[in-house]
C-alpha cells in the first residue's frame, strides 16, 4: 500500500456516537485514513454506485466497516451486494456490531465478511480493536491500488 495516500474507509453505521468514536479511534493510528460515512445500507449502495461510475467525491473504499442493525435494509444486504458485484468484490468488508448472535456470525462469514468484530464497551478496548484492525488490514495485508486520481479530491462525501 502506498504510504502517502490515505486509505479510504467506508463506515456504514447509523449511530452518530459510534461514528464519531470509530473515526476518532482511527485518527489516533499511524496510518493516514479518510472516512466516508453512510448511516444506511441504501446510502452505502448509492455511494458505491458513484464510486463505480468514477465520481471523484466517492473514491473506492479500501475497507468497509459495516454495522448489521440499521433502519431500512439491514447490513447483511450490503455485504451481499458487495460480494456479488465483480467491480466491488475485492473490497474487504468487516462487520462491526453489537450483536454476537451465532446466527449473525455464521450468516456474515457465509456471505464472505472478512472479519466479525463485536463493538467493545470501553473506550480503551475500542482503541485496541481499531489498532488491531489497522495492523491487520493496513500494515500486513496487501491491497489493490484503486484509481489514484480519484483520491485526490478530498471533499468529504456524506451520503444519507
Amino acid at each position: 500500500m502506498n504510504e502517502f495516500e490515505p486509505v479510504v474507509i467506508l463506515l456504514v453505521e447509523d449511530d452518530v456516537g459510534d461514528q464519531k468514536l470509530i473515526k476518532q479511534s482511527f485518527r489516533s493510528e499511524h496510518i493516514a485514513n479518510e472516512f466516508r460515512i453512510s448511516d444506511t445500507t441504501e446510502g452505502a449502495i448509492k455511494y458505491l454506485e458513484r464510486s463505480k461510475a468514477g465520481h471523484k467525491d466517492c473514491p473506492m473504499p479500501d475497507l468497509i466497516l459495516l454495522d448489521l442493525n440499521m433502519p431500512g435494509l439491514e447490513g447483511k444486504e450490503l455485504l451481499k451486494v458487495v460480494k456479488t458485484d465483480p467491480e466491488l468484490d475485492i473490497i474487504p468488508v468487516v462487520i462491526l456490531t453489537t450483536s454476537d448472535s451465532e446466527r449473525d456470525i455464521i450468516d456474515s462469514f457465509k456471505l464472505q465478511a472478512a472479519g466479525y468484530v463485536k463493538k467493545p464497551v470501553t473506550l480503551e478496548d475500542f482503541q485496541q480493536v481499531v489498532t488491531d484492525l489497522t495492523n491487520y488490514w493496513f500494515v500486513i495485508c496487501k491491497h489493490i491500488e484503486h484509481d489514484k486520481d480519484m483520491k485526490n479530491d478530498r471533499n468529504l462525501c456524506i451520503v444519507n
Partner: protein
Amino acid sequence: MEDTKPAVVLLVEDDPGDQKLVKYALRFQQHQSNLQIVGTGEEAIEYLRQCKKGDESTPRPDIILLDLNMPGMGGKKFLQNIKADDELSTIPVVVVSTSDEKQDIEESYKLHAAGYVQKSDNLDKLRRIIQKLTQYWFATSMLVKK
C-alpha cells in the same frame, strides 16, 4: 474469541522451510494455536473431507493460511473449491504468499480470501506479521465455532 482452547490453524504450504518458519512464528505468540500442516491443495481438501466426517485427528480449522504457488491444483483453485462448499465457506482463508503481483492479490480477494499477506523468510519479520494476524483473528474477530 475468549475460548481457552487453542485455535486450529490449517497451513497449506508445500515448502518445508516455510512450514517450519510459520510453525516457529506461531509458537511464540500470545494466542495459542493448534497448527495442522498439509503440503498441497489436494491434501487440504482431503483433510477437510475428514473433518466434515467429524474425525478427531483432523480438527476443523478456525482459519486457513494458504500458499498460492504449489504443485498440483495450486492455492487459487483450492480457495475456489472451499468457498463453493456450504459447510466450509465460513472458514476465513488468508493467503500467505511470496508473490506481491497485482494479479495474485486481486484474484485472491475476488475468490474471497480474508486477507493477503506477503511471506517473509526472515523469522523476526514473519513473527511480527503473524503476531498481527493472530491478534486480528484470535482476539479481535469472532469466528464460527463448530
